[in-house]
């Protein structure tokens, strides 16, 4: 996946996978801190309007987003590897965040989500595209991380 901050989506009959990758000139701990401090999300992220709960392994969080303002997504944190990998999801699919340290001192951030199942073809058209929101999410994370790193 190229690190250009542009989302790509691959569709099959029973699944849909969206991914994005972007280079961020920041320390992995800072990117991780932003991704795991639930109450701070709305301050820097223009997609997520609120997250209730504690982002930690095994915990369930309640997430609201501008994609479907009336809906609350109940998501379980399934993977939690500090400064490297975070995953949460529900029976429909998983969203995976990875942070990879680059040799130039920055990181590559990737975000992937695969949704699907036997009944997926029935409601596939009702689920909006994630491309734009993934791009905005990655852009917000890059902007905030780099502001922090450049602060005095």
């Amino acid at each position, binding site marked *: 996946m190229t690190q250009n901050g542009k989302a790509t989506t691959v569709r099959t009959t029973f699944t849909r996978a969206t991914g994005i990758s972007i280079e961020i000139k920041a320390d992995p701990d800072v990117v991780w801190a932003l991704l795991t401090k639930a109450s701070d999300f709305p301050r820097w992220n223009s997609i997520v309007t609120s997250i209730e709960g504690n982002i930690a392994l095994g915990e369930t969080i309640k997430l609201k987003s501008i994609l479907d303002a009336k809906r609350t997504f109940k998501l379980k944190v399934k993977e939690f590897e500090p400064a490297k990998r975070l995953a949460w999801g529900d029976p429909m699919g998983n969203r995976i965040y990875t942070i990879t340290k680059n040799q130039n001192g920055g990181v590559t951030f990737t975000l992937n989500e695969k949704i699907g199942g036997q009944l997926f073809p029935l409601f596939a058209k009702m689920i909006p595209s994630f491309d734009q929101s993934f791009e905005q999410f990655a852009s917000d994370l890059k902007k905030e991380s780099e502001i922090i790193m450049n*602060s005095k």
Partner: protein
Amino acid sequence: MTTELFNSEFESIAGELKSYILRITASIADAEDIVQDTYIKASEKLHTFRGESSLKTWLFTIASNLTKDNLRAQKRWTENVTDITKEAALLNKQFFQEAMNIRTTSPQGQFEVKEHIAFCFTCISKSLPLEQQLCVFLKEIYEFKVAEIFEILNTTEAMVKYYLHTGRTKMMNIFEGRCALINKQGACHQCSELNGIFNPKQNTQHEIMKIEMAREANNKDKEHLFDLRMSILKEIDPFKSNASALQLHHLEHNRQVMEKYLEKKAV
């Protein structure tokens, strides 16, 4: 470093250390205890002090660790601390009688708006995560450099920047939303209200206009207004100022109210 030199240096730093711990813990007793414990611990470990950092940085490191241990089991306060404590104060006649008594009898019992601004910041800063609160005070009030703060808090430069940025931004947003001194729509007028009670002969508006932050309220640069707020805190020693007796009494009241409030909320 000789013990005599250490004692003399400690004495010159102790005031700042005590005010720092007070502002983090909001407890007079804890501030006094932790300063004492810092002295004992530093004396015992003086042979390990190699001068790689300044003595002030080393002492603040010991004091910060003791403070973090002290606060580990305690819950953080809430952003609306001043609303909760105001409501409790209005129902507590004894609190006001004692405050009036301090106001009329203590040489350090004056009420000054800028002192209340500093007090208010201390209370609201306790709603920040502890690391953010420590970083904000160390950088903005006690003027440590980022490189010194990550040594004091045993973390990394990047994380200090993260804590500072998030702590500052959160405090700016809280004050922008609440403080009537910088936002005409702000719901909190406590400094003006209390000035009216404790200094009834004063023109409160005139007093407020003596404060640069209030004069510059129309300045839309939140960062600048926050820096002006920080400059007020920098000028004030909460144990030695003209208003210290009154503000410490008020702080003790708020601490007790918040401890009870958080205890009740947890049940």
